[in-house]
């Protein structure tokens, strides 16, 4: 087999292998990662209800 033919095959093999690797990387990036439940719970946590002077004043006025 001539040297030209061999180098051409090697070139094609290299192109094919790098293409497959690239596609795999892209696919891994494209798949959305599910947000862990714990992280979602943490995000949803808020300061919430506080027994502030403002709220106590509201309750007082509502009693009238």
């Amino acid at each position, binding site marked *: 087999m001539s040297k030209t033919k061999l180098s051409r095959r090697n070139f094609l093999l290299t192109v094919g292998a790098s293409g497959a690797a690239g596609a795999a990387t892209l696919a891994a990036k494209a798949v959305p990662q599910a947000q862990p439940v714990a992280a979602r719970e943490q*995000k949803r946590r*808020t300061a919430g209800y506080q027994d502030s002077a403002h*709220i106590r004043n509201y309750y007082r006025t509502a009693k009238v």
Partner: protein
Amino acid sequence: MARMKFLCDDERCIACNGCVTACKQENEVPWGVNRRRVVTLNEGVRGERSISVACMHCSDAPCMAVCPVDCFYHTEEGVVLHDKDMCIGCGYCFYACPFGAPQFPQAGAFGMRGKMDKCTFCAGGPEKDNSKEEFAKYGSNRLAQGKLPACAEMCSTKALLGGDGDVIADIFRNRAIKRGKGSEVWGWGTAYGKPDHPQQQAPTGAKS
């Protein structure tokens, strides 16, 4: 732990729509979306009653049960909130809610619902407390500022009560005891009392 509730005293509500306006102004609610509205029962008939209605932040919320993407959640205070990033605008919650609380913007193309919007008990959403992102999606987070919903605080006759369920139930119980009527003193047999004149019926709409 306090559980946040709304309670509308129909003896005091004068249908001024102050609560509706306060909600719209506080949360910059867009046109076509009504997080809160005043409903008048037996209009024009003696003994007509008005009540202010919004999301009742149910303990066993039907919207939460039917949501296919599970975007609803309860906060530690029992407020029902939802994640607009997860909402797909399917409208199931709209059909499930007995109070008509879930609203959809009308500005989009025909047949496009957009993200659901509803009363948040002025508790914002899953974004960082009082951040720009939270305000843009859900409106004001007054609860994190140590305040109560704008609608309840704005109510001139204090008909609309909002806050810790135990406290507002006590306030309403005392009012009912003083009046000697309402919630058929005292018990939750019916949520808004019994009609003063049971023989009177609402107009049927038949022309004379």
